[in-house]
């Protein structure tokens, strides 16, 4: 191991009372740094290639990395139905108990489906444990975080609201989670 302990070097102590030159130099240095930022930003603005760090949201939006965990959504198969078979693992794994599932039977080949699938987004903490627990790739974290509601009841999302076609998710979330499928 090659770590060493170093005592931090303190800047030279300030004399009391402070000389005008010394104080002035410090103030000028600070102004120089701030100005450098200002002129650089102004130049970028005039050139049309802003270097300012601020993102003018909501007109400008940032692209999220593939790993980004937004709100959980249900994957919709090509036939319009959810891939979810209401196995209940996501409900059980959720630390905040925000998922409510009532399973029911269908006559199709896949015999089980969620009659009720509610996620209370005001409780959801976007941790992604539901996505990790799911054995069917049926619930994944989307990139959507713009989910404000006008009432507390409006924060509960039902199954129909949560469905997102699999095709859309191919480009975003699936790309990230499928990297881990063959650990």
């Amino acid at each position, binding site marked *: *191991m090659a770590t060493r302990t170093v005592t931090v070097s303190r800047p030279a102590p300030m004399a009391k009372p402070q000389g005008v030159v010394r104080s002035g130099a410090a103030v000028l240095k600070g102004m120089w740094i701030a100005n450098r930022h200002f002129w650089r930003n102004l130049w970028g603005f005039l050139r049309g290639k802003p270097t300012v760090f601020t993102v003018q949201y909501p007109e400008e939006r940032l692209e999220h990395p593939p*790993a980004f965990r937004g709100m959980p959504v249900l994957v919709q198969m090509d036939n319009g139905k959810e891939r979810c078979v209401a196995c209940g693992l996501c409900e059980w794994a959720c630390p905040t108990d925000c998922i409510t599932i009532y399973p029911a039977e269908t006559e199709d080949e896949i015999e089980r489906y969620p009659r009720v699938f509610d996620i209370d987004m005001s409780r959801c903490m976007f941790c992604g444990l539901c996505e990790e627990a799911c054995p069917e790739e049926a619930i994944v974290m989307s990139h959507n975080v713009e989910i404000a509601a006008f009432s507390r009841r409006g924060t509960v999302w039902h199954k129909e609201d949560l469905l997102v076609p699999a095709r859309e998710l191919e480009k975003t979330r699936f790309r990230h989670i499928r990297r881990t499928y063959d650990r």
Partner: protein
Amino acid sequence: MADNQKILARIQEQCSGAVLSTDTYRGDASVVIRPERLLEVARVLRDDRELAFDLLLDVTCVDYLGQEPRFEVVYHFYSTRHHHRVRLKARVPESDPTIDSLVPLWVGANWLERETYDMYGIRFRGHPDLRRIYLYEEFEGHPLRKDYPKEKRQPLIGPGAKGDYKPRVPEIPHASRVEGMLGAELMRVQLGPSHPATHGTVRIVLDLDGETIVNADVEIGYLHRGFEKECESGFYYQAIPYTDRLNYSSAILCNVGYCLAVEKLFGVEVPLRGQFVRVIGGELSRIADHLLCIGATALELNAFTPFLYALEARELVWDLINALCGARVTSNFVRIGGVSADLPEGFADMCKHNFKRVLELVADAEGMLLENPIFRARMEGVSVMSAERLIAYGVTGPLLRAAGVDLDLRRTQPYLVYDQLDFDVPVGSQGDNLDRFLIRLTELRQSVRIVEQCLQMLPPGPVDVDDPSLRFPPKGRVFTRMEDMINQFKLVTEGPKPPPGEVYFAVESANGELGFYLVSDGTGKPYKCRARTPSFSNTQPLAEMVRGRLLADMVPTFDMINMIGGECDR
């Protein structure tokens, strides 16, 4: 291990008859003593030259409902001289849950014992000020006891409740002097709980004599969310998102600490690549935390521009963390037995690019502050506390290193791959706010260095342990293989089940020693999940640090302690 045997032997030798049993489960030296001999044994632990346990890290309690005696009061100690640890335990019965207070020996036991009293109802004999610390006075019951149901409601108090509500005049226990200069009355003001400078809700009641602080009392608990009770009612893997919310400025470090503690319970170690990835995540978090601390300090001294530079730098670090685990703050990155996912593609390039800009911004912020006479006047020589006093308070981290004590767990008790890395540990010389500031700047740069080294040294291989008893199987196998599907079901529905036992594991988080004391009863839910958080112990000396100083010194001192509300209040 030999060290543990020597410690236990020495304790038994020096405190004959007090020791009931000893244990070295998973390498933790642990002693059970008779409760009536606590003060004597603790004094031996502190004063004996071979033991030299000068740092009282934690006081907590475990409720063994159904056993008699019911409560086990647990103490964790560390020696800054010999760098070894010990755990002391003493059982007290339900009928009389009283034990001696350690405040006469360690002033830092004050808040720790108040918390144990608040949560479990243990009474500490000789404690100068035994009142609740997190919960309000009218709270009925002791919530961490096993027979207190999590959903229990409390009667309403305050405006809106039935009955007479009278706002209380804030008190300062053991306030000294009631006359100011020229015989004037002291003025009692409150800094907080809603105050722009206390980022992290805290309420500091002050007695002012003009601008001088005569008495101070710090009241915490405004962000108490019941972390321990929540962890006890969920599985081990469900606690990880809650650890994010302890020190939310450096969440990955909290994840790492917790998962390493659980893995110690299991007795497993993550593969090498996984360890490197954890170090990378952890150090990125540390950079983010220090950037915030520096920026917020500048902000509260009215230097708004360096604050924005620090925050821009933090945004860049957050972009890295975001790419790594999917969220900027609530990372949920580490898993028991590995990490949630390996490094994304192009991560090394992203780091290189972002770090360049981060270091530029930090240099700019530093340049604007360090020579500035106002900054220097407000930070230099302010709130000095000696190393001995800090150690008596149980302080660790940059706050302690500023006083010249060379204690960094990454170096003294290395974990993960820190022993293979090359970095500097800064210590201070004067112990004032300026030293604390400079230490954080240096640590920040060293963390960048660590991440760069890790990215270079990263070995190929798996990041996760391939153990079906604690890590979810890879999804590809779950979809297509019967055994893995069963494995997934069993782990999710019953949780990973470590063998019964208890461990304590500590990591060096941004504010100091973050330790997790886990007690397992063999089921998938922790019997006790205690987080020993550095901010709690670090905030305790605040009242003493500012006594006699000006009101204006309160702000930079508080900033340099870097109390993170989530960590302090759990």
